[in-house]
């Protein structure tokens, strides 16, 4: 056996012996060379766009075909740089796909926060569903490999873009790298204030509500510097900020809006306060000192957390409570960009961002319900984990802004909680909170190692020497007693019939016939099924302090070089 193939070996030199065999087998099976080559090309292309197929099982995701649609879906990211860069990016994407999806989600999310990138941009350039994307990034909702590949491709590309923007800026070159944006969003993404800038502005606002042009310009500088620092780049490389570059006009608008906001709040405060609650006076006192700070905190926090606080009498009770948000550090507040547009109850439309930043500045104890932002889930995001905490109750309540940054699990502080419960009935506002803790069901996405378990079946009948057993028995006449397996003996052409009289030791065939399962031999091993799953579930409940990604994650600093 084992036909001579020395001649064959000399032929194709670049193939391994097995590859040769396989190709040969294919050719021998009737496949023509052209067909084979064509098929290979097709398959290769399919594989490339499908991303890392081999991750399928490992992810433990539900059944997934190779490509969603047979022709690979468009990524909307077709514009590539020269081949080496494209190849490099693709390689990086593949590598990222091997990593843990949740870790990747965290990384991408924090990158987006750091650079203040809108989700919309991702959605537009990847074709992903925005809700799905948001859930994946914030809550870890599973995302299939192909889609993750799209996401990571965008990420890798974006990083390259931004790095280029920054480096070009340092050389005084303006790069026209807006490929993705052009068609869709006109030119640039909408400007968004970063937390660092906001902090600076709020502080300035406290000092003076109406800064002069020079002062505004100074603030522009300051803010841009802070934003660059947040992104880990030198403050002089402004181009990297892209659409989020702070300009004098924007600063002007910001102040104008804040002034209007305040005026509006004032107006609301004067409205009929029908919160029958406790002394409005308490509330008033609160207005003075904590409120500015609160305001700042609130706006930052609320914008990011999207929490709702209806200004009502209840708030004052929580004097102590109110103090807590004060401890907020801006860097930690932008944890979650969930941001629901609240429905305002009142008459005239409040100024631009009032609805978001307003709340609680509950200094407005008298505050009317008018402001209730209805049905906002209170999202407590901890650095790297998102928790939805809320109360389900039909009673209108206030949601205190609580941010338990340093800690893990964020819960409503008991005090305020009870307060709400007690004071609720009066509120005409109905707020619905979804209380659902992120189910750990999606934890099913945790990687499950493929378990290769070879069961040792019927080992009793077999020994490792089984393999060397020979098959015997020609006809039933020669059946001897079935004994233990013996060594190999292949009955050659010598007439078996001749042996019919001699008892031939029966071999394993008997057993073999009864057990169709793979024969286990010494060479198989039981693969241990142990798999320490990452503590993904833990991130839901508690975010280990070390894990929280601050706004300026130290490890990010170097990436923007």
């Amino acid at each position, binding site marked *: 056996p084992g036909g001579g193939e020395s001649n064959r070996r000399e032929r194709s030199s670049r193939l391994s012996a097995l590859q040769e065999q396989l190709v040969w087998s294919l050719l021998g099976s009737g496949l023509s060379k052209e067909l084979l080559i064509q098929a290979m090309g097709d398959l290769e292309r399919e594989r490339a766009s499908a991303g890392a197929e081999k991750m399928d099982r490992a992810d433990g995701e539900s059944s997934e075909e190779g490509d969603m649609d047979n022709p690979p879906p468009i990524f909307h990211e077709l514009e590539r740089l020269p081949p080496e860069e494209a190849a490099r990016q693709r390689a990086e994407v593949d590598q990222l796909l091997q990593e843990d999806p949740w870790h990747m989600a965290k990384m991408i999310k924090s990158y987006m926060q750091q650079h203040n990138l809108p989700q919309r941009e991702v959605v537009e350039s990847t074709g992903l569903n925005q809700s799905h994307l948001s859930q994946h990034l914030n809550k870890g909702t599973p995302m299939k490999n192909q889609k993750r590949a799209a996401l990571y491709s965008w990420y890798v590309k974006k990083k390259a873009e931004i790095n280029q923007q920054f480096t070009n800026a340092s050389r005084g070159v303006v790069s026209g790298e807006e490929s993705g944006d052009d068609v869709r969003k006109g030119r640039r993404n909408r400007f968004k204030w970063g937390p660092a800038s906001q902090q600076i502005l709020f502080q300035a606002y406290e000092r003076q509500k109406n800064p002069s042009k020079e002062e505004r310009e100074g603030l522009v500088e300051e803010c841009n510097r802070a934003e660059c620092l947040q992104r880990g780049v030198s403050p002089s490389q402004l181009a990297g900020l892209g659409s989020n570059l702070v300009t004098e006009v924007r600063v002007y608008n910001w102040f104008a809006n804040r002034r209007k906001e305040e005026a509006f709040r004032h107006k609301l405060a004067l409205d009929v306060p029908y919160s029958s609650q406790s002394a409005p006076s308490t509330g008033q006192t609160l207005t003075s000192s904590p409120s500015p700070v609160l305001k700042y905190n609130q706006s930052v926090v609320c914008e990011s957390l999207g929490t709702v606080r209806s200004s009502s009498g209840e708030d004052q009770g929580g004097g102590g409570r109110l103090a807590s948000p004060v401890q907020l550090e801006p860097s930690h507040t932008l944890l979650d960009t969930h941001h629901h547009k609240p429905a305002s109850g009142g008459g005239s439309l409040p100024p631009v961002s009032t609805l978001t930043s307003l709340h609680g500045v509950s200094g407005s104890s008298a505050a009317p319900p008018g402001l209730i932002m209805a049905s906002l889930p209170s999202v407590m995001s901890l650095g790297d984990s998102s928790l939805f905490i809320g109360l389900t109750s039909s009673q209108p309540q206030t949601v205190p802004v609580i941010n338990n940054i340093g800690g893990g699990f964020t819960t409503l502080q008991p005090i305020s909680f009870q307060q709400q419960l007690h004071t609720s009935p009066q509120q005409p506002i109905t707020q619905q909170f979804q209380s659902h803790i992120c189910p750990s069901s999606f934890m099913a996405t945790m990687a499950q190692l493929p378990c290769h378990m070879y069961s040792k079946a019927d080992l009793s009948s077999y020994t490792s020497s089984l393999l060397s057993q020979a098959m015997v028995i020609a006809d039933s006449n020669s059946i001897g007693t079935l004994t233990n397996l013996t060594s190999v003996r292949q009955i050659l052409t010598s007439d078996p019939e001749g042996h019919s009289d001699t008892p031939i030791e029966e071999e394993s065939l008997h057993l073999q016939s009864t057990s169709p399962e793979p024969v286990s031999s010494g*060479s198989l091993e039981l693969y241990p099924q142990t798999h320490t799953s990452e503590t993904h579930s833990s991130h839901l409940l508690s975010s280990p302090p070390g894990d929280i990604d601050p706004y300026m994650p130290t490890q990010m600093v170097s990436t923007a070089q």
Partner: protein
Amino acid sequence: MTKKIFLSHLEHLLPMMRNAQWVEVVGRDAIYKEFLFKDFNQTFGFMSRVALQAEKMDHHPEWFNVYNKVQITLSTHECGGLSQRDITLATFIDQASVL
């Protein structure tokens, strides 16, 4: 529906198989043979050829492989014994093994 090989045919075919070193399995209507190759590559090449053919015929062997050894048992499930397909495949297997 595949039919078992006629007994008369069997009487004629079996010796042929035996000559080719296919032996009958005790207690079951099947034939068996062991193959030994030089190394794993050869072995798996052989198995690939057999596999492709099996797919084509829609008739698959029971086999076991360890490194350079392959043990093959052929039988037809739906008729509970040997059928023409087994013979055909056996022939092919033999051819493939000497390639």
